């Protein structure tokens, strides 16, 4: 019985520090980070730069930092130290340009709204029935005059 107790104590001594370390280790991963940073040589987000040698090195560097329990922010800071601000893919991550950060989302949205409005306008115009010379009903005074003429000729 004593033996079992001491064995359990030894196991607990081994397991508890590792569990505590794992609890203190920020939860991030290479996959979590690579969509938010750029491959500076490829000019694309790292997640899209599949086999470029520089991308492979960058991934290895990120993985080393993740293995050292660095948080996502710490990894990004380390990447900026190595590659400069351009390594950050998310607009809000770059510098203090708050107006730029807003515009980068607002301008494309505005563009989409304007394009949608333009397409809707074009479709409405295209589908609207033509009212001149195609035999459809006329409105207002022209319509009334036409009706009078039709009655007069008693066709």
């Amino acid at each position: 019985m004593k033996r079992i107790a001491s064995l359990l104590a030894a196991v607990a001594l081994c397991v508890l520090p590792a569990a505590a370390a794992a609890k203190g280790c920020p939860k991030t991963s290479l996959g979590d980070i690579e969509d938010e940073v750029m491959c500076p040589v490829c000019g694309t987000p790292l997640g899209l730069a599949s086999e470029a040698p520089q991308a492979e090195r960058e991934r290895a560097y990120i993985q080393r930092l993740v293995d050292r329990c660095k948080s996502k922010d710490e990894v990004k800071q380390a990447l900026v130290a190595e590659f400069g601000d351009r390594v950050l893919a998310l607009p809000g991550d770059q510098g203090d340009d708050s107006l730029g950060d807003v515009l980068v989302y607002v301008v494309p949205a505005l563009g989409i709204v304007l394009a949608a409005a333009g397409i809707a306008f074009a479709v409405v115009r295209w589908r609207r029935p033509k009212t001149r010379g195609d035999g459809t009903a006329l409105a207002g005074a022209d319509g009334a005059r036409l009706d009078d003429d039709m009655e007069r000729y008693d066709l």
Partner: protein
Amino acid sequence: MRRVLSPVPIAVICVLVALVALLGYGLAQNEPDRGVDRALARGEREPAPALELPKLGGAGTASLADYRGRIVVLNFWASWCKPCKDESPLLERWQRRIGGRGGAVLGVDVLDVTGDAQDFIAKYGLSYAMVKDKDGKSMDPFGVAQLPETFVIDRRGRIAAVRRGPVDDSFMRSSVEPLL
């Protein structure tokens, strides 16, 4: 006067023209500056663009101005660049050959992880000076579009030769030797 087109097709045409112009502008912006090559083809030597960067893995900076009066073999490289591995031993041999004759090789490590670059330097036993360009901004003024690229700068700070790609011994002999 008879109306040729309604506003909608005109607007669509304008948008298309604007998109094509934007595409053209984007392509033009991405074209590397080849002014150095054109000048060399005319037999002229342009002044080398200013360059001041932090020393790789160390304190302080180094600049091209520090080398005025010497011949500089300015080599843009990175540890992830495969052709850079092939030319590094040659550059090291030339550093030893010209170091005592008023010349120097200066490496510019671009877009690289410092630790990887230091491992590369240790592996290939490179003794020449190295600076780090973390975001590659020094590449544009020299028109560097790929790695490695090498510029030979004369004693007056003018670009005397350029190699877009890995250097070989014949390039070094023909472009560096006459300047010594």
